[in-house]
């Protein structure tokens, strides 16, 4: 009897990478703690989200990378199809067309692209492993820009940035020459005015607000002002759990979702921030280590890009909440309330675990 249980347990935990799992548990514990302060009534719902996410992670962790590679093209095409579906039939919420109602459930196809994009590009570069020509980078860029453009049109700047970043990481890790990277950087700067002219008013406002939030303290600048006040007033040690006046007296908007970092920072101060940055660095470090030891080019590129997505989530979120990046709807990975992002992130962790399980066994 005991042996049977032990066997089951072994099977259950076999594909799970203990360091990643440990970091994940610490982040989830931190999330639960913050939920208890910022929005106790959502604690139960978030725990359900967490359990679902962990289950997905465990399932994905068992899928070998080769199988995932076969899924790359269909998933990508499905994603594109859904995005077009959203553009044509999507539900509008808060002025943006992001959701697709499938009758049984509403889904946000752009979220899927965060995984589908690196998956496809990693597959693409794996195929051209032996002879990678400049033209291939061009094709990769095209494959990337189509969904990004569709998402940006919804408009959903946050997700577009994340998908763009995910694809870019693959291209970068695949070895695009520094010359071309440099050229792209220059071109991007040159194209900035054009991008500005294509942006929606609310997107422009977010950037203007970033430059001078006090110009419109009750309107567009309110979020940033209140979150920087929360962070700044937290000081070194913080005000203590549940003691953040900015958070508890409703001055912080979206305090259980995108702005939860402000709550954390107000209540746990600089010390708390350092701890969080350290945990995230561990997560990213572990991810990069897994990428470095990936068995195939596909595995390596995918692991590297997914790891960098964690970083992008974290950096964009903390950057916007602390007022150095424009406000785009990006949650703090593993901490913010919400099932969608958590599922995406857990999927990525599952893939990382799978890649780790199937790593190069001999160091050459």
């Amino acid at each position, binding site marked *: 009897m005991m042996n049977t249980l032990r066997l089951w347990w072994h099977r259950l935990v076999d594909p799970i990478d203990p360091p990643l799992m440990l970091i994940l548990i610490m982040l989830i514990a931190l999330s639960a703690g913050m939920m208890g302060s910022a929005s106790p009534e959502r604690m139960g719902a978030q725990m359900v989200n967490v359990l679902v996410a962990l289950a997905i992670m465990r399932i994905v962790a068992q899928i070998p990378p080769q199988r995932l590679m076969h899924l790359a093209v269909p998933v990508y095409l499905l994603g594109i199809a859904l995005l077009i579906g959203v553009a044509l039939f999507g539900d509008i919420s808060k002025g943006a067309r992001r959701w697709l109602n499938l009758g049984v459930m509403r889904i946000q196809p752009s979220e899927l692209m965060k995984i589908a994009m690196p998956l496809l590009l990693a597959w693409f570069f794996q195929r051209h*492993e*032996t*002879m*990678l*020509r400049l033209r291939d980078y061009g094709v990769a860029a095209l494959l990337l820009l189509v969904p990004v453009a569709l998402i940006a049109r919804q408009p959903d700047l946050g997700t577009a940035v994340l998908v763009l970043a995910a694809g870019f*990481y693959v291209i*970068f*890790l695949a*070895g695009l020459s520094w010359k071309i990277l440099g050229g792209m950087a220059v071109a991007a700067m040159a194209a900035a005015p054009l991008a500005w002219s294509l942006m929606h008013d609310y997107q422009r406002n977010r950037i203007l607000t970033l430059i001078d939030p006090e110009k419109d303290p009750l309107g567009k600048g309110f979020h940033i002002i*209140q979150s*920087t*006040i*929360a*962070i*700044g*007033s*937290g*000081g*070194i040690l913080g005000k203590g759990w549940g003691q953040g*006046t*900015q958070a508890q*007296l*409703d*001055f912080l908007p979206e305090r259980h979702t995108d702005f939860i970092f402000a709550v954390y*920072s107000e209540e746990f*101060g*600089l010390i708390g*921030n*350092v701890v969080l*940055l350290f945990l*995230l*660095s561990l997560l*990213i*470090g572990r991810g*990069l280590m897994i*990428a*470095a030891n990936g068995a195939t*080019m596909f595995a*390596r*590129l995918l692991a*590297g890009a997914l790891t*960098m997505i964690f*970083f992008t989530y974290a*950096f964009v979120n*903390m*950057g916007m909440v*602390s*007022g*150095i990046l424009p406000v785009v709807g990006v949650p703090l990975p593993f901490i913010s309330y919400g099932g969608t992002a958590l599922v995406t992130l857990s999927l990525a962790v599952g893939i990382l675990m799978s890649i780790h399980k199937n790593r190069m066994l001999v160091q*050459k």
Partner: protein
Amino acid sequence: MEFKNPQEELERFRARLGVAGGFVLVCFAVLLGRFVWLQIIQHDYYQTRAEDNRISLVPITPNRGLIVDRNGVVLARNYSAYTLEITPSKVRSLEETIDELGQIIDVQPKDRRRFKKLMDESKSFETLPIRTRLTDEEVAKFIAHRYRFPGVEIKARLFRQYPGGAFAAHILGYIGRITDRDIEKIEAVEQEANYRGTDHFGKTGLEQHYEFDLHGITGFEQVEVDAGGHAVRTLERTAPVAGNQLTLTMDAELQRIAENAFGDRKGSLVAIEPSTGGLLAMVSVPNYDPNMFVDGIDTQNWKELNESPNKPMVNRALNGAYPPGSTFKPFMALGALTLGKRTAAQTISDPGFYNFGGHHFRDDKKGGHGMVDMYKSIVHSCDTYYYMLANDMGIDNIANFMGQLGLGQRTGVDIAGESEGVLPSQAWKKKRFKKPEQQKWYAGETISIGIGQGYNAYTPIQLALATATLANNGVMFRPHLVKYVTDTKTGDQRLIEPHPLKTLPLKQEHIDVIKNAMIGVNKEGTGTRAFAGAGYVSAGKTGTAQVFSYKGAVHKTESMAANLRDHALFIAFAPADKPTIALAVLVENGGFGAQAAAPIARQVLDYYLLGKKPKAPAPADEEAVEADPE
């Protein structure tokens, strides 16, 4: 085209990973730098901002100081009542909202008019009362329907109330909502902080003059608020200090008797305690009800008050300037004695007129008074005597002397907006007129000045002050309504003006001559009928001021339009040997002073000296005449 070597490829990939890792560290370092900046370097600033967010200072308006008469009778007080208030900026359609409110709570057209006037005078984010003094039942009704009315709320407020209604309105004045001009006054004395939460301000009368005494010290409550501005809990509280209490020199009962004595006639009475300058009564009738102004007056009532030919809003005691008529004569005589122009015994012969440059200045008494000395000139109000005297003294001597008595000058009473009146002199005329031919003073103009006509125009309070100064043997006190201000916190009483303003350079023997003559007026002269059987010795002088010049025509007052009839005047003090009260009475279009004004003075003196309360307003004595009845 690139050819790939797997080993080289792996190395290159790992190098790229290293770059990516480095990028992560750099970005995290930037974040860390940002956190250090916000949480250490700028911490104090953000700490303050967070506290500012969280803590709100809510002013607690102090109770306005009471106003009581010299015996403690309350004349102005506060009461707490519920008001239904609308914040116009928070309401979608004001008209609709008021209509809907009207279905549950009684909203009169006059409430709407008043609300409209308030709106015009204030900013849209202020909350303004549509209804005041809600009953408990109305409050309960509204609360049940509150969800239907965003931007409408019930507030408990303290209201100013003048329990006497129109009684003594011109003394008390009223308060009204703060306007921009009031704010300037508040800023001038740097009281802005203390007026946070106050929305009323003294507009006229004592309420205005003693505003900063009556207001009190605003208390504050430190409350923790959430982002919606709702108070979560109280952190600290500083209690307000109620405004200081004003105790008046005025005697409410005397004031009431004086006001009632006028009946429905227009006019003014000012009674002064000669030894202090304290005003015992200050009447200006008709009155208005200052309570109407507290909640904001509606346009219709405001129009009625302002356009009424009876001018109830004018404080006649301070702002009505009237020729003194014959009440001027005792002061002329005193001037003559002081300047050596006459002795008391010196007599003139009165043929019934005074001839000046071929023009006959008529005496009221046909055929004249015969041989007239100073005593007789006052007792029988002989005009000829004063025509001559005025000519002998000259206009500038008259102006100098009367100026010392306070005529034609603001008395400095503790109510703002007092008029100066007109003290005619050569300099005055030069200033008053623009054309050179009008600027010259003609000697003929001096003649009628002698009997208190011509350019002469003084306010009732000036006449009363001159009378009180005479009664007090030349020692003048600034007339004032407030006896003392009681500090609510310490209980200290601050006396207003206990010291004499000045002592006039008069000889007591001269004063006695005049006083004696004025006693004669009430004993055997024009005041005899009014003061018959008084039971005390009083001194007085009747006066009749022409509203209209008839150029020598004999006129019958009965046949004249009421508003062209002469003004009746009377000055008096009593008891004559040790005066405790001096007064001036003016009845607009009352006819002769002895007819209309003297009986009012009698009622007032009877009450003040004997405690006798009259049963009815002072009747006009139609038998009395201005000149000696013989």
